[in-house]
């Protein structure tokens, strides 16, 4: 007993200060759509306060993996997930887990900006309100301003908070969706090709935002743009035919990947 606690103390002391903290852990994750298997034994750790990019050709399973991180796949009847996915060590597929609460902790931003047909203000405050995070007008004003500031949108919309969110430009709408996602103070933000419907300038704004959000959030992003993955992420995971091919530091993956499939994919040689 004594020895064990001593060993534990020693371990804690010896642990390097920059040892990455694992926010989410996927272990032997398999996903099936009916009889068809979409993911095969994926083992992937998501580091805290890190941007992890999931790359790979269409149909490789990267979005499927992303969606399994906040149980978005639950909405598909025929979808079945096996293996373990944990958030801070807690199994997110445990029957006792409240899925609504899980999705507040693990938020999501989609490919096409999808603001509610309501005002900018209502778009942001909707989540905090249903999760009971705000009690009065002052709370709401605060969360709206804070989220819009964090999403880099506040200055552009502060004079028209009560106008419809759908009236904004594409890039602004996507940042509104990011503001909506962060309004409920999530710990992890999942982004499924967040810039594919945006022009280069709006893309750059969102990328800059991702860079800033990383300080406070853990981000997992699916992207078809190699350059975007190389620019915004610190870790990259490459999927192919439902298998996690390779995972590592982004700097390494894009200059000298280990797996020939990664090499072929990122250099544009996939048949």
């Amino acid at each position: 007993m004594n020895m064990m606690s001593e060993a534990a103390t020693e371990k804690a002391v010896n642990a390097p200060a920059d040892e990455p903290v694992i926010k989410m852990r996927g272990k032997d994750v398999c996903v099936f759509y009916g009889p068809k298997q979409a993911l095969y034994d994926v083992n992937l750790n998501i580091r805290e306060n890190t941007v992890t990019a999931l790359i790979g050709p269409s149909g490789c399973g990267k979005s499927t993996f992303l969606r399994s991180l906040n149980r978005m796949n639950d909405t598909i009847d025929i979808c079945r997930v096996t293996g373990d996915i944990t958030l801070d060590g807690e199994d997110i597929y445990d029957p006792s887990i409240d899925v609504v609460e899980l999705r507040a902790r693990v938020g999501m931003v989609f490919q096409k900006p999808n603001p509610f047909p309501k005002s900018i203000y209502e778009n942001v405050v909707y989540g905090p309100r249903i999760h009971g995070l705000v009690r009065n007008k002052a709370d709401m004003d605060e969360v709206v301003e804070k989220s819009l500031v964090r999403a880099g949108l506040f200055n552009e919309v502060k004079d028209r908070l009560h106008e419809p969110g759908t009236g904004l430009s594409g890039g602004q709408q996507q940042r509104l969706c990011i503001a909506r996602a962060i309004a409920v103070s999530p710990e992890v933000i999942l982004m499924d090709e967040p810039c594919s419907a945006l022009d280069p300038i709006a893309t750059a704004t969102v990328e800059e935002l991702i860079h800033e959000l990383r300080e406070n959030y853990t981000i997992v992003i699916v992207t078809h743009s190699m350059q975007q993955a190389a620019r915004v992420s610190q870790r990259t995971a490459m999927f192919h035919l439902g298998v996690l091919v390779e995972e590592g530091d982004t700097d390494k993956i894009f200059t000298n990947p280990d797996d020939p499939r990664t090499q072929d994919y990122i250099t544009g040689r996939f048949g």
Partner: protein
Amino acid sequence: MSEPHTVTAYDDELRWLSRRLSEMGGIAEGMVADSLTALINADTGLAQRVISEDLLLDQGEREIYEKAVLVIAKRQPMASDLREIIGSIRIASDLERVGDLGKNIAKRVISIHTMPQPKKLVRGLEHLSELALTQLKEVLDAFSSHSSEQANSIRERDEEIDAIYTSLFRELLTYMMEDPRNISACTHLLFCAKNIERIGDHATNIAETVFYVATGQQMSVDRPKDDESASVVADPVK
């Protein structure tokens, strides 16, 4: 190169770079060989030709540089492609320097062709240049075949060039001390020897680039010994 790219024009562009680089390599090799022939035969006509050929290498370097920048802008290359393109730029500039060194030897041929030259020394230079040229040839082969092993052995062999250069350096000093009338020619020959030794260094640089292009790793930092002529001094005349 492994599989072809989905965009075939991309492959064409990479092939263009590699072909242009081989051409530059051929010209650089020819210039160095010709400059030595010109030196041995005191052939000023050939020396003139070497001097005029340098333009071709300058042009080649510029073209490769511009094309490489364009390919980067258009294709946003990754991994081995990116390493290859950056490698092309570096190798082109090494080859351009090799051409400059050959040209410099040719200029010296014109200056010293009327002076008597110690035959033995000129032969020593010839041997040195053969080694340097072999290195250059092999390193260009290594580049086109992406062979990291070959690149490694080239770097190892640079030691030999350095050793011969150091011994030539001593010999030239001895000649100069024997008869001050040798000083002018010997000084020029000394620079020729130094130029050839530098050509060997450029071959080594290229080998290091080839190794990086092929493996994505840098060669180990402990390079074989440098030439030791920096520490050679003439014994005082008694």
